[in-house]
């Protein structure tokens, strides 16, 4: 551990040059921009910048690209909160409470909560990487298909099990999500599923397009119906909101801690930032004292997913460098970059490329601090956007949404999909179908299915493989408990009430 601190100091000496600091600022600013635009997103941003890095030395190149990633993570939360349009898949969970807060005129508060907690989550992630790099890398190796499936099931169970809406509607929403998620070529059987011989569907349906439609356009339709005005979203520039949020931040230390733990865990295993944010939100809703107020503009509902999202984003860099496992789409692109710069990800990277690895880790500290500062500086600017009249901002949102949907794959077909999902989102909201289960099922359903079928191939069809060693056994058991929790608590609740009824004196007239 001490040698790691030495190495980190060496890393700072590599990263702390004017040139590198400039790259971090540039990267973060660009990142915030691509993060704010839905559909563009971090993976596309990194891909666009990649050719620029061919002529750089690897340390500068990775600093630029990772800074852009941090910036995009911050920027992605902005539009989730202001317009209910997640700029990044991992900021979907931020919309659940962030957007209601914005509608109550607490936009700058919500943004401040989001950025500060994201910054803290990121720092926790980096500290873990710094101190435990060797142990963590070998831990990640223990994850085979059954372990992956158990992790996904756990993420899934912790978000879904407490269920907000009507159970049947939740199941319909889930089933739709699984259905959309499985379109395209199946990894395990190699056959095309649900593509109806339409070439555009080979790709499957992009999760981002669905989100842009369901959340962005769907919300816009609702707004139009309710009167062409942002209800209650007072556009006043409110520096006091920011200060208030900063001052009350310490009160939420439990949420921050829980979110960081979930995030680091999901980043390392690696379940990815999106699953982490959902899982953290679900856990917070169940365990927090403020749980009942979730979904109506509760700050903790912003803090929980944001902390986990960033903690996962940063800690996922470790399996990427040491094992070559990309934890997210963005780190997959960066992996490609590593190879082009002439580096081979693997355990030897930490020994042979100390400048690169530790320079990058040091830059993660600096980049995220710069990220928080720059993101906070943009709060007044973005909050002011809410005061623009709807007749101007409405069309702008539609344009941004459609441009975003097009950018995902450069396919005109996706524009129609986005519009269709916009209408679907509007209808689902009107009919009280929850959207979150659909989104979650789309994101991890596909991966969970692969992992499950791979496990079944390995065990020739025996479910026992999910309890075949202590690690996977523990994960599966916790997941199963979470799934049964609502059932158990309903039973317990029923017994308690019936007991209370027996003990209570009969009501007069009963």
């Amino acid at each position: 551990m001490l040698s790691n601190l030495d190495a980190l100091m060496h890393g700072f000496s590599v990263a702390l040059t004017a040139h590198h600091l400039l790259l971090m600022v540039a990267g973060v600013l660009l990142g915030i921009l691509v993060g704010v635009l839905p559909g563009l997103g971090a993976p596309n941003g990194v891909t666009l910048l990649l050719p620029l890095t061919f002529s750089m030395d690897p340390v500068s190149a990775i600093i630029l690209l990772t800074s852009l990633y941090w910036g995009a993570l911050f920027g992605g939360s902005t539009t989730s909160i202001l317009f209910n349009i997640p700029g990044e898949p991992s900021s979907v969970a931020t919309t659940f409470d962030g957007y209601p807060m914005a509608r109550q005129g607490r936009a700058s508060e919500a943004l401040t909560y989001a950025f500060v907690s994201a910054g803290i989550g990121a720092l926790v992630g980096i500290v873990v990487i710094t101190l435990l790099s060797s142990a963590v890398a070998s831990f990640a190796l223990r994850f085979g298909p059954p372990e992956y499936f158990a992790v996904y099931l756990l993420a899934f169970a912790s978000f879904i099990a407490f269920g907000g809406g009507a159970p049947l509607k939740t199941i319909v929403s889930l089933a739709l999500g699984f259905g959309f998620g499985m379109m395209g070529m199946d990894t395990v059987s190699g056959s095309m599923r649900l593509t109806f011989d339409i070439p555009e569907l080979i790709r499957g349906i992009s999760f981002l397009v669905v989100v842009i439609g369901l959340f962005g356009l769907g919300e816009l339709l609702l707004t139009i119906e309710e009167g062409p005005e942002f209800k209650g979203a007072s556009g006043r520039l409110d520096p006091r909101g920011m200060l208030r949020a900063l001052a009350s931040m310490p009160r939420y230390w439990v949420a921050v801690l829980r979110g960081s733990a979930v995030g680091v865990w999901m980043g390392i295993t690696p379940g990815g930032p999106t699953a982490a944010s959902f899982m953290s939100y679900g856990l917070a809703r169940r365990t927090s004292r403020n749980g009942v107020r979730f979904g109506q503009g509760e700050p903790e509902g912003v803090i929980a997913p944001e902390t986990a999202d960033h903690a996962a984003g940063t800690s996922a860099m470790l399996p990427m460098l040491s094992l070559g496992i990309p934890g997210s789409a963005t780190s997959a692109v960066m992996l490609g970059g590593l190879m082009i710069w002439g580096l081979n990800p693997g355990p030897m990277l930490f020994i042979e490329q100390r400048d690169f690895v530790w320079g990058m880790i040091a830059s993660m500290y600096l980049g995220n601090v710069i990220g928080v500062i720059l993101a906070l500086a943009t709060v007044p600017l973005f909050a002011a956007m809410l005061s623009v009249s709807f007749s101007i901002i409405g069309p702008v949102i539609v344009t941004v949404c459609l441009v975003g949907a097009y950018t995902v794959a450069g396919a005109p077909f996706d524009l129609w999909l986005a519009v269709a999902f916009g209408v679907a989102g509007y209808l689902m909201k009107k009919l009280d179908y929850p959207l979150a289960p659909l989104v979650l099922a789309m994101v991890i359903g596909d991966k969970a299915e692969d992992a499950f079928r791979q496990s079944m191939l390995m065990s020739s069809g025996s479910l026992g493989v999910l309890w075949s060693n202590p690690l996977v056994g523990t994960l599966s058991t916790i997941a199963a408990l979470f799934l049964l929790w609502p059932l158990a608590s309903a039973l317990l609740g029923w017994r308690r009430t019936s007991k209370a009824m027996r003990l209570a004196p009969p009501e007069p007239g009963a």
Partner: protein
Amino acid sequence: MRMFPKAAAVIGTALSVALPAAAQPAWQPTRPVEFVVTSGAGGGTDLFARTVQAAITRHNLVPTSIVVTNKGAGSGAEGFVYGRGAQGDPHKVIFGTNNEWLLPLVARVAWKPLDLTPVTAMAFDEFMLWVKEDAPHRTGADLVAAARERPGALRMGGSQTRDTDQTLTLLIQKATGTRFTYIPFRGGGEVGVQLAGGHIDANTNNPSESVGGWRGGQVRPVCVFRREPLPVGPRVTETQSWSDVPTCASQGIAVEEFRMPRTVFLPPTVPPAAQAYWTDVMRRVSETPEWKDYIQRTAQSAALLAPAEMREMMEREERSARELYGPEGWLVN
């Protein structure tokens, strides 16, 4: 000056028309060029295309700018369908492997192998048989013996289904009379990590997919599917280089040669002059230090197939694939 006759030869085979040697090319790009990559970002084909892009940019081989787009869904089907749709547009260059002609055999996709215009195959990626560092099998022969003892008990990992890795597994099984349980994953990197973690017993990764794990003492190659060992090069681990890996045939696995071409295509019905132009650009790329470095680092074998040779290879491979896949029930077309 030295390269000049070679250039003329390549253009000659490409066009079978004599071009005036020093004149302006008959066709050259007039707007930005799109490199369509038939794999996801970070995949082998992505690295191939981006290396070509980097070489072109650094040596100014193409007058306009180049954009790389990843269309890797459905094992690359997305990119090939896109390329086929861009009929007659020589500003789109499609990068792939042998999936261009093998995928239409096993999946229902909207193109036929000979639809696209072949440009060249620039390299052949090798396949090796890998085991975990501390596996009891020291050699390829050991592994086969273990598989023979307990049919189906050993797990062979690979990327995708009915793709090159599973094809090779099939060939190994036929050649040795053994049976492995094949488990498909999303990509070579993932397969490598699964082997390092001991969740599978062997895989058939390309050298570049597992070089990090070999150097880090997690996995080791037991043999290479090649007629002779790889040429002598610098050391990869402290004691060994790629040339120290014996051929699989010498280990009693009678699969003489199995390799995957890195291919370049243009959309259908592009002017022959454009085909010649890109053939020449790729030839010049293959002479850059960036390309040579890429070939060495990824332990591939350099090649430069003329379009006619490539077409011949496509037809030959398709025939043998049909023979192999037919009895397995893999063929859909």
